[in-house]
């Protein structure tokens, strides 16, 4: 029923882990988004995370902050976002996860937003400022319509991890390091320990994806080796999109994606 769940099952059968690639919709424009998605699909990404910009992205580092600002300035509205998603859906049935902040959904109404998103072709949501304590209405609106991916952190207690795992569907998003997206700290021992711990606690009931600060094939390799079911790469893609001219964008995205995906084959 869930495209994301099916994808993880399919990968397991093929003895692979998942590469989840993030891009900010409308950065730097609609055309680049469509092209980048083509590149991601051809390069072998398993799931695509589409960012919808928010004016105050507190969990994001400067790369995604800047992309949000540019996208908003270019006029990325919710209706525009959904129309882009529909265009993407005509080309691919890859699972699409929408990442944005709580206020965007709250303001429109959780039910209304989620049903419109679903109609456009969105399969799940990631809201980095949505804590489980405040999630009742959101969960109710998403139930049966979209997956709700919650985040955990290396400092999340075991009892809390279990509570969060219970309301998460699709996958569980482990924030690799203390910091915002795009942070450069290198691979930490505490992250590797956290991956093992979460895997043990969740007993394979839900896949565990690791994100924040992952930018190279080597990063991917190490996190997969530590037991992650998926890795999420975001800011590195935005940097690539920013510096690549439109006519070379698809091929550049393909080759970068291939280099990351290779590390998820066991």
């Amino acid at each position: 029923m869930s495209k994301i769940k099916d994808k993880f099952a399919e990968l397991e059968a093929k003895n692979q882990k998942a590469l989840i690639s993030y891009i900010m919709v409308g950065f730097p424009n609609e055309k680049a988004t469509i092209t980048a998605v083509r590149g991601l699909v051809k390069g072998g990404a398993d799931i695509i995370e589409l960012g919808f910009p928010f004016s105050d992205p507190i969990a994001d580092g400067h790369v995604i902050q800047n992309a949000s600002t540019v996208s908003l300035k270019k006029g990325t509205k919710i209706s525009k976002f959904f129309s882009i998603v529909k265009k993407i859906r005509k080309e691919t049935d890859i699972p699409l996860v929408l990442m944005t902040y709580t206020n965007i959904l709250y303001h429109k109404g959780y039910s209304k937003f989620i049903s419109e998103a679903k109609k456009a072709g969105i399969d799940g949501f990631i809201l980095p400022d949505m804590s489980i304590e405040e999630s009742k209405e959101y969960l109710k609106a998403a139930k049966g319509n979209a997956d709700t991916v919650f985040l955990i952190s290396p400092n999340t207690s075991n009892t809390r991890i279990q509570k969060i795992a219970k309301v998460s569907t699709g996958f569980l998003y482990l924030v690799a390091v203390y910091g915002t997206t795009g942070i450069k700290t290198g691979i930490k021992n505490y992250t590797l320990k956290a991956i093992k711990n979460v895997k043990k606690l969740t007993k394979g009931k839900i896949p565990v994806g690791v994100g924040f600060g992952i930018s190279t094939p080597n990063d991917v390799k190490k996190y997969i080796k530590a037991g992650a079911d998926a890795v999420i790469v975001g800011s590195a893609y935005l940097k690539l999109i920013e510096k690549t001219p439109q006519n070379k964008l698809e091929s550049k995205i393909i080759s970068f994606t291939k280099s990351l995906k290779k590390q998820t084959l066991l």
Partner: protein
Amino acid sequence: MKYPKNGRFGEFGGKYIPETLVPAIEELEENYLKFKDDKTFKKELDYYLKVYAGRPTPLYYAKNLSEKLGGAKIYLKREDLLHGGAHKINNTLGQALLAKKMKKKRIIAETGAGQHGVATAMACAALGMKAEVYMGYKDTIRQKLNVFRMDMLGCKVYPVYSGSKTLKDAINEAIRDWITNVETTYYLLGSAVGPHPYPVMVRDFQSVIGNEIKSQMKKINRTPDSLIACVGGGSNAIGTFHPLIDSNAEMIGVEAAGQGLKSKLHSATLSAGTKGVLHGMMTYLLQDKEGQITETHSISAGLDYPGVGPEHSYYKDTKRIKYHSATDAEVVDAFLMLTRTEGIIPALESAHAIAEAIKVARKGKKSESIVVTLSGRGDKDVEEVQNYLKRNVKD
């Protein structure tokens, strides 16, 4: 409302935060609940409030101003006389002391007008800690005197260049720092905003204002008919109102109407905003149809914020507190009137409350009394006012 259940004031408040901050917020609440009624903690805080910050502050009968207006009597709660020049020190001493008990080594804060930054730097210096402060780039220019003060006090000031380059963006950046350094760092928030327990904790530390007003009015055998305070995030206002919330006094919070509520160039969140989620809380916000936070304007940097404390949102909806607004022009007039009649230079933030008090006093009876919280002094603002007057040819 004494202590909000689940961190909610009615439907407002809560904790909408990245998961990384959850353990820090839980640790904070646990320690706050442990220390808030602890005798030693209270004694230590009272000591600093008294001999370091200069409490209690006087309640001054503004005779000249009241007589000039010919109506109700205006009393000024002189928070401007506190060390540092604003009510902010009530909260920073409380939180810095708490941070010390929690054995936190590093303190970060955001600041708008710079008053909270200065008060944080002072409290930290007094308690032997180091502070680092985020301040919107625009605010570092228009409140540069306070940047110098923080610098002198040994506090690092980081200008923030993102978004509207004001208080909202300084808070974003402080939260990002906190996420990154969560294990070592205490975030000393300056207003009654943010995720639970900040709104209630800041309110409690600021309630010393209302508690003193209560006993000072009693001493002169009066009960306030009206209480007036300015509202940005709303910490001096909630500190003024909360201890008297069960009384019959009329309460008015005054927001920044900037160039007018219709101009879009204002910061009047409660007067013109809609419900939403920002900075960890559900509250009224200034936002567009899509839920994007809009840029605000006010002549006073301290009120230039698109959100407001969740308890104010609650009292707006329950109608216990009225929320009015004052335009930049009215504020400058009030600033000059108080300066000239009483020889008191108010902060532009506080001048919003004065502007409202002028209106209320004119309509009031001589037997009535109005208490206005003069949240800060205006030395920091004289240049801004001078520039304003130059731009708007006045007497």
